């Protein structure tokens, strides 16, 4: 097992390098850079050249890639052109926010999607199944930004149950940590639903079809023939097997949620990685763009590995060596 993990980690390296090279090339080919943002009527051309020099923009691309790579491996993601501060310092406070949102959405998906899938499968063709199936179809077909706007319109503007934007009211000093968490959760409910919707629908569909397959399998018949109650049959015997393909999805899901957070964060005004990244793209703050992209790529690769490991953990038949 350990050798397997090491081998897989080693396999990640060339893929990761491939991704960063492509990213770098694309950024290299793009017109303009952040220095063009410093437009001030009284700034002279030589002052602009000075800025370009300071950000190392005049080095050849080939060299710059290796400089970037070397620095990145040492944990130095470079200086943001816009904020003139280290990228790590800028991204550090954004990661917990986005991660919290992604994990909340993930848990939401799991808690709603999987039970719904089970209900759907155990009561195939019932009213519950049909309505849940329709819901899941809506879930995968409704664009998240549209869904987010609808929720804002209804629950933040009409009902005023939830705030319009942000993750907290900074002037509210929570009396204790729990109140602080509840305060934040209140702000995150709508974003969580929006970000989690796709996952909920996907998990539901996968759980349903996986459970349907499992429920019809011979060992479930065996379990029934033993006189086990239906609940034990479904929740112990069937679920344990039915969840195996779902669990393998988990590893992929969190990285993709962090990517999806871009849209959610911009709708709900959440100060996270996604909004920072969009701002960086608009400002051509390349160090931040590179950092966010390669971080997400690395997470995706790691997610694939975690998926495999989860698979091995969930299914005794799978052994890696």
């Amino acid at each position, binding site marked *: 097992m350990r050798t397997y993990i090491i081998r897989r980690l080693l396999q990640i390296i060339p893929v990761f390098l491939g991704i960063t090279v492509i990213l770098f090339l694309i950024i290299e080919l793009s017109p303009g850079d952040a220095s063009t943002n410093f437009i001030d009527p009284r700034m002279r051309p030589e002052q602009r050249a000075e800025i370009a020099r300071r950000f190392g923009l005049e080095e050849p691309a080939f060299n710059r890639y290796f400089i970037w790579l070397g620095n990145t491996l040492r944990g130095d993601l470079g200086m943001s052109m816009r904020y003139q501060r280290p990228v790590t310092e800028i991204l550090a406070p954004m990661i917990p926010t986005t991660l919290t949102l992604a994990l909340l959405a993930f848990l939401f998906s799991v808690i709603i999607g999987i039970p719904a899938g089970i209900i759907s499968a155990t009561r*195939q*063709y019932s009213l519950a199944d049909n309505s849940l199936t329709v819901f899941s179809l809506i879930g995968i077909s409704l664009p998240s930004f549209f869904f987010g706007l609808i929720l804002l319109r209804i629950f933040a503007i009409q009902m005023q149950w939830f705030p319009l934007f942000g993750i907290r009211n900074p002037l509210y000093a929570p009396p204790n940590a729990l109140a602080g968490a509840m305060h934040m959760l209140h702000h995150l409910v709508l974003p969580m639903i929006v970000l989690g919707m796709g996952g909920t629908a996907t998990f539901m569909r996968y759980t349903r079809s996986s459970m349907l397959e499992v*429920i*019809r*399998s*011979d*060992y479930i*018949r*065996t*379990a*029934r*023939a*033993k*006189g*086990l*109650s*239906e609940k034990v049959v479904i929740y112990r*015997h069937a679920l*344990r*097997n039915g969840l*195996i393909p779902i669990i393998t999805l988990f590893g992929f899901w969190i990285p993709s949620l962090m990517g999806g957070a871009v849209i959610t964060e911009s709708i709900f005004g959440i100060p996270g990685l996604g909004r920072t990244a969009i701002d960086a793209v608009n400002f051509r703050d390349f160090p931040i763009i590179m950092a966010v992209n390669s971080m997400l790529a690395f997470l995706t690769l790691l997610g694939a590995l975690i998926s495999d490991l989860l698979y091995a953990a*969930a*299914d*005794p*038949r799978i052994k890696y060596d």
Partner: protein
Amino acid sequence: MNENLNNDLNNVDDVDIGAMMVPESGMPAVGQKKEDILLDVKGLKTFFHTDNGTVRAVNDVDFYVRKGETLGLVGESGCGKSISSMSITRIVETPPGKYEGGEITFDGKTLLRINENERYLLPEKDMRSIRGNDISFIFQEPMTSLNPVFKISKQISEPMMLHRGMTKKEAHEESIRLLDLVRIPNPERIVDEYPFSLSGGMRQRVMIAMALACEPKLLIADEPTTALDVTVQAQVLELMNDLKSRINASIIFITHDLGVIAEMCDRVVVMYAGKVVESSPIEELFESPQHPYTQGLIASKPDMATTEKRLHVIPGNVPDLTELPGGCPFHPRCYKVTERCKQEYPPTHKITDEHIVSCWEYNGSGISSEGGEEA
């Protein structure tokens, strides 16, 4: 399209009711003491309602099992023999399955009674205390009938903890004993293995051990050897034959292999397209099969003595149970088919107390096997 189909089938239904009017067709033969009968199935109907129409998997089936007796249920795949046995403990998937009629009595208890006036099903809770406890199953596919993610010990322990109130530890030890009983080497080690690490034959032994765990009154073995290699088949059969004498249980042995039947059973019920076509003690069946279908089955059985002849094949395919032909469902494949066979379902004739047959061509002295289409 479906509507027409259903109409056709309704017609078949009408005929069925006529057939049921033959008195005492499925009753235990005269002279049998009621208390000898462990399981009595009468007029059982289990249908499947699918998008493509109603599948009459079990359509008015009668049979019974005496205490200590081994009953063979024989027929081609899809003839309803598995569904019949599964209907006894109601482990047919519902929906799409539905119990549409009949009466099942087990050990004095009514498990099911469904007719025009009544729909009685033994409460699920009581039924569960019978499943795995009084009636246990050995299924056809040892490779897939064990839960892949649980260890052997857990799977064998489960019914014992449930029905016999054992603790986990007791059940674990009992599992080892049972594995030893079914002649698994190293039971202490195997008990902690997952099913995937065992061979098919070993898994089937595990299934048998599991089935024996609660010392059932009735053991239903649904083609327990079909999926195994020939040599392993022989071992498992030998094991079962051996266990038969050691456990005090009745057995329903379901198979399409008459050779296995001959080895294991006291009595045989032959099914075709959801119906019992013939039922007889074992010797009588092999000596004088009455139904053309039974005759065909016996003829198609490879026999060491007759290897020089070409194997007999019953022409045609197993019928589509949603589109059963009118009259006797076997008529399209029957070498003795008459116009009447195509119109009406045949009555049940009692040849001896224990031997009954459903065929228009039975005339009191048997059905001649002349003029068969065999090569």
